[in-house]
């Protein structure tokens, strides 16, 4: 009670960057606040009304002054804009070697699923000094993942997949909050992020109640939902092959192209008619209501894993080398579609 914190802990790679920007803006704004307050005090004292019918000395204005106090704030504002944008870019662009954790917000809990199968509720364990990417969905309304010590936040939006990444830099336990109002127990939709030393994290992963690898679960769904009958490994299926698809650019029937990211995969499962791959027919039914948010996450994890050299089912085709757009074989297979 008497230990009154006034500043949040810095426990991620972003914390220092965000705080530096905060200190910069604090310094600039404090300067102007003090300047104005001092001037108001000085003028109000020096030029106080001394007799009842005294009027002020007429001063119309001064163009040079107006230009000065328009341009200086404008320049400072632009510095803040660029600085703020550069921090935002860093927040928005995860590196390629992140550890992915699938996150689902549901009134009023956070569900985390590690690729290796561990599931957690309102608790998230991550290793220190390792970039972690949360792939976030929502089962009902909008929520928002927020870890103040990391200075990161991202909404969980129903019908979309969003991402957030961070590198925790200090072992410890940190608050996790839902910051988008979501109803009755919004303030109870809280938890803890536990940052562990790599060794301890490995031990935790091994000891946790693993409920089956996400990729295996995803592959099982891929078979059970009969995705596999159309999305074959070769290019002869009624749907495009999904091998090596993730991260590539897909050409659509409309002539437009789209990056195959998590949101594209989600949309293609939930609203398959929205974007038709060039050369294919709009035959796929929607899986809206047939797969839960968590199953969808498993499917995403699986589809992302079936790269050309991936762990997926054995394949006879000599797939395109990694990096080459997978859309090309799909387009080439067009004539084969019924």
């Amino acid at each position, binding site marked *: 009670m008497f230990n009154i*914190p*006034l500043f*949040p802990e810095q426990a991620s790679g972003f914390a220092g960057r*965000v705080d530096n920007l*905060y200190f910069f*803006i*604090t310094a600039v*704004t404090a300067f*102007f*606040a003090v300047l*104005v*307050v001092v*001037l108001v005090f000085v*003028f*109000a004292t020096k*030029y106080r*009304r001394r007799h009842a*019918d005294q*009027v*002020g*000395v*007429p*001063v*119309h*204005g*001064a163009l040079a*002054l*107006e230009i000065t106090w*328009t341009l200086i*704030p404008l320049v400072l*504002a632009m510095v*803040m*804009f660029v*600085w*703020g*944008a*550069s*921090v935002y*870019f860093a*927040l*928005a662009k995860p590196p390629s070697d992140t550890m992915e954790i699938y996150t689902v917000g549901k009134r009023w809990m956070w569900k985390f699923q590690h690729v290796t199968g561990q599931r957690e509720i309102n608790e998230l364990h991550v290793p220190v000094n390792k970039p972690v990417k949360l792939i976030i969905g929502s089962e009902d*309304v*909008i929520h928002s993942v927020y870890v*103040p*010590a990391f200075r*990161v*936040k*991202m*909404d969980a*939006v*129903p*019908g979309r997949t*969003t991402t957030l990444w961070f590198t925790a830099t200090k072992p410890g336990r940190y608050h996790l909050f839902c910051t988008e*109002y979501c*109803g*009755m*127990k919004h*303030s109870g939709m809280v938890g803890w992020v536990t940052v562990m030393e790599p060794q301890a994290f490995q031990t935790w992963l091994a000891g946790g109640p693993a409920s089956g690898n996400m990729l295996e679960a995803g592959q099982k769904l891929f078979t059970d939902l009969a995705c596999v009958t159309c999305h074959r490994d070769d290019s002869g299926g009624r749907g495009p092959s999904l091998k090596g698809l993730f991260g590539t650019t897909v050409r659509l029937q409309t002539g437009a192209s789209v990056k195959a990211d998590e949101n594209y995969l989600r949309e293609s499962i*939930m609203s398959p008619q*929205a974007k038709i791959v060039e050369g294919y027919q709009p035959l796929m039914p929607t899986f809206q209501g047939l797969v839960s948010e968590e199953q969808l996450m498993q499917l995403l994890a699986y589809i992302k894993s079936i790269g050309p050299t991936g762990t997926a089912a054995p394949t006879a085709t000599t797939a395109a080398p990694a990096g080459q757009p997978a859309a090309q074989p799909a387009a080439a297979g067009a004539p084969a579609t019924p």
Partner: protein
Amino acid sequence: MDTATAAPRVDYLENGHTWQSWLLTRDHKRIALLYLFGVTFFFAVGGLFALMVRLELLTPLGDLFEAETYNKLFTMHGVAMVFFFLIPAVPAVLGNFLVPIMIGAKDLAFPRVNLLSWYVYMVGGLFTMGAVILGGVDTGWTFYTPYSTAASNTHVIMTGLGVFISGFSSILTGFNFIVTIHKMRAPGMTWFRLPLFIWAHYATALIMILGTPVVAIAIVLVALERTLHIGIFDPTLGGDPVLYQHLFWFYSHPAVYVMVLPAMGVISELIAAGARKEIFGYKFVAFSSLGIALIGFFVWGHHMYVSSQSIFAGLIFSVLTYLVAVPSAVKVFNWTATLYKGSISYDAPMIYAFGFLGLFLIGGLTGLFLGAMGLDVHVHDTYFVVAHFHYVMVGGTIMAYLGGLHYWWPKISGRLYPEGWARFAALVIFVGFNLTFFPQFLLGYMGMPRRYHMYPEEWQVLNVLSTAGASILGTGYLLPMIYFTWSWRKGPKATANPWGATGLEWTIPSPPPTENFIETPIVTAPAYDYAHQEEHVA
């Protein structure tokens, strides 16, 4: 004006004492008083909810109210304060009373439409109050989807209907102001002789007309989605919940300027009269109002940096947000420069104006933190934002509104209020306000999310300070209500121009006659022409 012409120079308060003479009046001054009654009622209601919210937050545990009750309290606080107090307060009370007088007109262009706008406002208020009595609403004043459309089982539609209806009152007022300012200026009252209060109200009226229909549409869509599941916001039907945020903030960000621009207009008047000097850089202040109104329409996405909005969109909104900050800074610098070589009074209206400068300064400057995308990610939806917008909307708007009420009270009521109490109240409000909201910046930067019924206990001390401040602030707001009520009946009579100020409103008796001007005035000088005031008066 059939009764008014019968006896010239009957002051507007004496012109009829029946209920009909008030409820069917077409006199803009009486309608302003009807609005004064309305907004004061909603301010009291909203304030009561705020008090309960602060009481709950005295302790980290949610031990005073149930979570559901707490959620309804902060929602209804926001709805009552934003839609039924802050948006109408300055324009509908002070604007209604002063716009015609300041430009030398006998009334607004459409007196019946003006009366209609009050009824529309009150009917909207009744719907919203009805929703409160029936059990309230818990969506937050922002009504975000899909919570408002698919999850909340409270009175969303009824509350929304109230907001929807009252929006029309705003549109009608804006329309009336624009036509009046264009068509009814007295001979010689050119655009650049207009008091800055009029410029600010003109800019405000533009926002009211262009923005309000959009929030009305957004609310209708929420109601349709809730009842008929049309699928515009529901992703399972191909809709997009984030679309609602775009529609909502397209109005609700400019709405902040509906609250602040007229307040800035008031401050220009208070400072000019308090320094007995023309406003430094009149044209810059005038055009900065229009600049704010215009750019203010294109910054809404800065509420959505973490909503999954694209990075590119975020960049555009961020740069425009910084651009809109500049004209506000220009105004503050010009007001400060106006004090230079002035004849500065320490009368109550000027004390409120000083208070406004201090609070609006903090409110405006903390906006710069929120415009920076990478920093906003951290403080978005925390108490930092809560503190920021209270500094702008409460610190700024209410200080100006109260300052204006004090400044024009002798004109409105024909009576004086106790000066010492008025200065004391301004001080109490200033201290109470800072104690309430400054700790919230610290809480916000540490990460305390807004709309939280419970919070981690390490944040209790700052929350206790905030609640203590709120009780001081509440007392501060009660004081003017008490002494104005006293003054209305028993205050000493005011002269026509107790401040020795310029402006047409001070050339007519206090309180003014129903027709304002017995003869249409002819304007020969710019606003705030204190240097030649004696010549004009003599």
